[in-house]
């Protein structure tokens, strides 16, 4: 071996290991090691409460005016859509889809809205469209404006990044009260809550799109004598259009994902309210049917925006099409006028398979509960509880069949040391560190470990991934969580998220590999992925509780279902994106297909897979509130308590803690991805 190299590589991990060992040994003796010293805790809640409330009340008149202004188009759209015959709307939607994507998209769109009518959700859906129809243009326009400003002013750009991160990661429930104070109750506040969450992807895409404009395009514009204004609108924006439209598309999806939350802020009895209420009543069939309305709206809007994005250059508003459109709409109006059933959808025509869906779920619960219980019990006992509380606390004669005696602990640590050394010898030092850290967490649990130990793990990871800036940010973030008094709740949430993200990532990568190798799997997966991402997560909770009951495992299932999608997508995309010439070169040098996969395609796809991990982490953390709704403790539950008591300060502290965890995890995952890319020679 290369001892000198090894020692250099291992010196930092060895110092870390010594420090952790010291911290664990001394935790019972020196106060402040196990938990942040309580005398140093800062009560941020009271001053935050005061500050936020007084600022909100001071700024109230302006925002109330804004609120009133925005409510006008919503009301107008609501009245308009409510009086539009459903048949005419379906025709209109199908025509728009036809213009965007041809006959297949038109059929899909018509089918989606027919589903809405047949299942009896027409009026609710129109109310949702009234809000969404205002929220989407406003979010897209605001995102575009911010993106352009950030592109032109470097100072803005530096500030905007963390602000966008906060907008995406602080749970909406954490700042509902100040929003309500500012804007008052009504559909507008729900719409703005969606906008906060939906604007960041648009801003990011605009900045990225404008950044990547080839130099020669700009030169051509300059030579043509374009003014700055012309340059922006006639040269830069059109060139960046594909990227911008991709961002708009993400914004549409994000707005739709907020429909349920918007409905509880003084909205209309719309489809989001329907989902929320059926969930509260445990009516699975009804909530699935209502959930699919949101899925279909998302798919239709997604395909139509994508269609327009791809066809921007063609003149599809030809004269003939125009005439045909008017004629067909006129015909639809006349037909709807003539047949009342096509005007207002009659209740007698409603077909709802909700009862059958419910009966099936009951049947499954009765017959397979033993199986689901066995799965749940083993995951809870061997994964969830040890990560949270540690083997040391969890293992008892009631559960594992033994208690952790000194001998048992000795055997555990000997085995783990062996594993670490083996990893050091056969793989890299990094892998060995990962093994050792995992062994440590599994034995003591995130709650059982001294906070100084957890913090040093995170700082070490931040150092290896992103250097000093990430270390400083992580340190500041963790100090905030610790001294604002949120450490225990944060660790409870992190332990659940950690398990959820790991499971989602491993499963997601496996499924993604299958999808990359087989086109049929890929084709089947696409609608499933779309559904998982746009179906309100509330809907999944009912069957999950039926078979797994209230508790952290149900929360885990919800997290995995929602967060698995990016892992699947990025893995498939990464594997399919292996450059042709690389594959040919490998084949030419005699690689078997197994070798090709393991030694060429998988390593090359690795950076992209890590980006998928990063998205999985973000989505997992976004589930912190949903996890609380099925009985998981931690930050989510405390945000809900703060909301009930209208405690602005508490909501802020816990909400910010969620965002900090997300941002640290994001920084580390992105840093590792960049390093790997560089190591593989993939970076541009």
């Amino acid at each position, binding site marked *: 071996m290369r001892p000198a190299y090894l020692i250099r590589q291992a010196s930092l991990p060895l110092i870390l290991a010594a420090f952790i060992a010291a911290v664990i040994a001394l935790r019972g003796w020196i106060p402040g090691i196990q938990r942040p010293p309580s005398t140093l805790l800062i009560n941020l809640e009271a001053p935050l409460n005061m500050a936020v409330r007084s600022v909100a009340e001071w700024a109230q008149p302006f925002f109330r005016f804004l609120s009133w202004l925005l409510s006008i188009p919503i009301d107008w759209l609501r*009245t*308009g859509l*409510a*009086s*539009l*015959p459903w048949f*005419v709307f379906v025709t*209109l939607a199908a025509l728009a889809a036809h213009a965007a994507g041809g006959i297949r998209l038109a059929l899909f769109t018509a089918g989606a809205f027919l589903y809405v009518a047949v299942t009896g959700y027409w009026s609710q859906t129109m109310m949702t469209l009234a809000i969404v129809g205002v929220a989407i243009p406003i979010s897209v326009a605001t995102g575009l404006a911010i993106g352009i400003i950030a592109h032109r002013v470097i100072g803005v750009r530096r500030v905007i990044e963390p602000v966008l991160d906060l907008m995406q990661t602080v749970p909406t429930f954490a700042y*509902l009260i100040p929003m*309500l104070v500012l804007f*008052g*109750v*009504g559909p507008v*506040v729900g719409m703005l809550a969606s906008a906060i969450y939906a604007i960041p992807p648009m801003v990011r895409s605009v900045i990225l799109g404008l950044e990547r404009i080839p130099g020669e395009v700009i030169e051509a514009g300059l030579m043509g004598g374009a003014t700055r204004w012309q340059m922006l609108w006639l040269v830069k924006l059109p060139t960046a259009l594909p990227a911008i439209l991709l961002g708009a598309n993400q914004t549409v999806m994000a707005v739709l994902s907020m429909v349920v939350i918007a*409905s*509880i*802020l*003084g*909205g209309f*009895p719309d489809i989001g*309210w329907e989902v929320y209420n059926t*969930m*509260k*009543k*445990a*009516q699975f069939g009804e909530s699935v049917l209502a959930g699919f309305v949101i899925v279909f709206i998302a798919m239709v809007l997604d395909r139509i925006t994508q269609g327009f994005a791809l066809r921007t250059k063609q003149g599809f*508003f030809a004269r003939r099409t*125009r005439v045909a*459109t*008017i004629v067909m*709409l*006129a015909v639809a*109006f006349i037909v709807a*006028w003539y047949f009342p059933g096509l005007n207002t959808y009659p209740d007698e025509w409603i077909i709802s398979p*909700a009862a059958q869906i419910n009966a099936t779920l*009951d049947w499954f*619960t009765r017959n397979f509960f033993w199986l689901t219980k066995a799965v749940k019990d083993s995951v*809870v006992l061997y994964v969830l509880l040890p990560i949270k509380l540690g083997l040391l606390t969890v293992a008892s004669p*009631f*559960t594992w069949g033994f208690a952790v005696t000194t001998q048992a602990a000795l055997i555990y640590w000997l085995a783990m040391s062996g594993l670490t050394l083996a990893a050091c010898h056969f793989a890299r030092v990094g892998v060995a560190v990962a093994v050792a850290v995992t062994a440590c967490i599994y034995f003591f649990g995130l709650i059982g470990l001294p906070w100084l130990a957890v913090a040093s793990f995170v700082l070490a990871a931040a150092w290896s991934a992103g250097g000093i800036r990430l270390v400083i940010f992580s340190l500041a973030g963790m100090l905030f969580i610790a001294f604002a008094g949120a450490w225990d709740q944060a660790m409870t949430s992190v332990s659940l998220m950690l398990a959820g993200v790991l499971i989602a990532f491993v499963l997601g990568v496996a499924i993604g590999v299958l999808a990359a190798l087989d086109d049929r799997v890929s084709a089947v997966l696409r609608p499933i992925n779309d559904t998982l991402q746009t179906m309100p997560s509330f809907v999944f*909770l*009912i069957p999950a*509780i*039926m*078979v797994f*009951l*209230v*508790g952290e495992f149900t929360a885990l299932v919800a997290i995995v279902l929602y967060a698995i999608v990016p892992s699947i997508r990025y893995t498939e995309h990464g594997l399919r994106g292996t450059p042709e010439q690389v594959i040919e070169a490998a084949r030419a040098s005699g690689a078997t297909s197994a070798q090709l996969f393991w030694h060429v395609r998988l390593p090359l796809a690795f950076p992209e897979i890590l980006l998928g991990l990063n998205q999985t982490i973000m989505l997992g953390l976004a589930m912190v509130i949903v996890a*609380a*709704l*099925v*009985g*998981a403790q931690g930050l989510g*539950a405390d945000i*809900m*308590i703060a*909301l*009930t*008591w*209208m405690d602005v300060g508490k909501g802020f502290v816990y909400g910010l803690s969620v965002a900090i965890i997300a941002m640290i995890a994001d920084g580390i995952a992105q840093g590792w991805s960049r390093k790997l890319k560089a190591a593989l020679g993939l970076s541009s």
Partner: protein
Amino acid sequence: MTTLRNWLVAGACWLSLANPAIGAAVPESPDTIKFALLDWTGNHITNHIAGEILTRLGYKVDYATTAQAAAWQGLSDGALHVNAEQWLVTQKPVFEDLKQKGKVTSLGQLGLVGREAWYYPEYVAEKCTGLPAWEALKKCTELFVTTETAPKGRLLDFPPEWTPESPKWIEAFGFNLTAIPAGSEGAAITEMKSATARHEPLLVMFYEPHWAVGEYKLKAVDLPDFDPACVSDPKWGTNPEKTNDCYEARPEIIKVAWSGFADKWPVAAKVIEKIKFTNEAQAPLIKKVDIEKQKLEAVAKQWVDENQATWKPWVDEATK
């Protein structure tokens, strides 16, 4: 631009089809009275019936869907005007605070009698003779043991934000139970559904009046009723060393309004003050909406049509 014209033409077409019904004689203020709908069916029915009565008197009404915090904010601002069914358990301090600040006001008791208690599905009594007496429950807590709570039994408690009292009772009576918070009401109801489907034991903190109590044939455990001395004097009750050896006080259920409501719509305020509902009157209506899947508006209209003898006197008294 030409496409824009297409849309405008279409828009003009359907706008001409829309003819909003204009209300008849409108008393006091022609503005719309906004009801706050919270997230349970009983509340929707009470509000819709109150709204339907006001509509028949010529008022314009609308319903806004809200969460509790949003409802308080709306009522304080006058963006929302009435919530005809407000439970004051965890919300009591919030209400008292807003009332003291002059933002909201009470329009009297609704008449529902609320109760919060531990419930079990009827069939559990087959395996645990002596229920609903709490002494019997104490002997068969092992029926409720799960992996997470072993060796103790599992009590599915209220969501954490409803400030659950169960842990205090477990301690005061010495039950061999662990309280697991349910996360949300929907989660608790789903567990009832699951347990009933499997015919397995379940012990759950819940409340009445609620349709789930009838639907899943729930029975309440008999803990001693509330007494003020119970929470202050350890000597009171079965455990001479501990307080809280009794259920908590019955929740108040009232009608709340924006403080400016009675000035703007004096008659409407009086009508709502008169509205009274009993558990027996509300239960069948909730069943119609939740079990028979009838439309909320239709159920409210039907009740108002069929019970003129009940609500006409409210109106008469209010307009006197």
